[in-house]
């Protein structure tokens, strides 16, 4: 377990030394959310309808942007090979890196989402559900994204390829995440959506580090 916390701390510290990269992804989210009203028009009733979808797609793209960096630096300087040899086990260390990725690129989106939601005139309880759905859903994005990042590690054109691999797999998360907010607005209640989102998070938490570690070993072998 000490290896796990050590890797989380290390990744967060490293990212804090170069804050620009973290902040860029967050600002991407803010800018994308601001572009949609300009494209759609300032009609508040329309904006409220499309807000859950826009904010969720924005979060999904922002989380994907930083996936390329998840393993790249450690792969380049050989740290990843040492991790594969470490007694803690690569699967646990990969899980730690995913946690660090979520802390750096998922959690800020969760914190920012209510502010952006207010721009779209979302009612207070919908804002609350939006935050909650992102809190449960963004870890799923990091977990699935880790598989894509591991598969495309060191591959030519990997940054573009990762979008093609990962985005179709994000579909269920998007549907239930944005669906939760929509259900809350329409008065159906969001608990069913949030439960399914939670189930997906738990399944991904079990399977994703394992699959990512297998994909990383492939990259290290070749």
């Amino acid at each position, binding site marked *: 377990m000490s290896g796990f916390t050590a890797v989380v701390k290390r990744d967060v510290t490293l990212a804090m030394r170069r804050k620009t990269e973290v902040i860029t992804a967050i600002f991407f989210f803010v800018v994308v959310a601001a572009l949609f009203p300009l494209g759609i028009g300032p009609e508040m009733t329309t904006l409220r309808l499309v807000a859950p979808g826009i904010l969720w797609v924005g979060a999904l793209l922002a989380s994907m942007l930083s996936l390329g960096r998840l393993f790249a630096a450690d792969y380049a300087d050989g740290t990843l090979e040492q991790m594969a040899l470490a007694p803690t086990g690569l699967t646990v260390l990969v899980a730690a890196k995913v946690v660090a990725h979520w802390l750096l690129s998922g959690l800020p989106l969760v914190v920012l989402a209510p502010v952006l939601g207010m721009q779209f005139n979302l009612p207070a309880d919908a804002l609350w559900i939006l935050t909650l759905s992102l809190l449960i859903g963004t870890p799923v994005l990091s977990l699935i994204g880790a598989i894509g990042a591991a*598969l495309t590690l060191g591959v030519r054109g990997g940054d573009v390829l990762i979008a*093609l691999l990962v985005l179709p797999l994000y579909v269920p998360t998007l*549907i239930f995440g944005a669906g939760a907010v929509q259900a809350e607005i329409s008065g159906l209640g969001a608990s069913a959506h949030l439960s399914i989102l939670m189930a997906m998070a738990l399944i991904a938490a079990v399977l994703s580090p394992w699959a990512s570690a297998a*994909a990383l070993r492939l990259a290290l072998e070749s």
Partner: protein
Amino acid sequence: MLSKFFYHYASPQHFYPLAGRLWPWFALGAAGLGLWGLWLGFFVAPTDFQQGEGYRIIFVHVPVSWMSMIIYLAMAFWALLGLTLNTRLSGMMCRALAPTGAICAFLSLWTGALWGKPMWGTWWVWDARLTSELILFFLYLGYIALTNAIEDPRRADKAGGILALVGALNVPVIYFSVKWWNTLHQGASVSLSRGSSMEQTMLTAMLVMALAFWLYTIAMALYRVRGIILHRERDAKWVRTLPDVAMVTNGGTK
């Protein structure tokens, strides 16, 4: 006895001539059944009293939609075999199946649009089945792009295998989530499901066409895997002593 048979043909060297002997028969069967099925579908089956002649596209549409899903399952099967038993041929079969799967998914969407325009008055609706077929098409494209981008063939096979398995786990989740999403949004959605009272000849024609596409897929996979084997094993001695290859290389050097 049976395991000996499998071990023997799990080697690309032994599978190459077997695939060469088999694929023309599957192709011939596909052509024969295809012609029979089309004849049944276009000339024998009666006109539908609700949908007119336009319904006849289902004789292509339904079989390719089935195949697009079955091929993904077959790919997941080969991927699992390749990752657990570490057999080289499994990865090659997986990659040989992928283009046919992508074509089937694309044809399914295309013929669906052609059918939707006269029946529903629109090329596309965000129906659960259409949407999940579209995502399946994206999954095929992702698999092909990933395996083509990785240069080391063994890593490409295994990375593709992991992706195929993750995708196969996701396909049912995607289908049910899209279904839920759709029913929440539209009360009265256009339903693809027809009554079970299908005319006997229509059903026969569709099943014959489905069988034709099965044979076509097998023939194409075997044909394509021969090319992949030759390419991967191009430096092996058994390839250079193959009659066709020896003739070409000798003709070039002499």
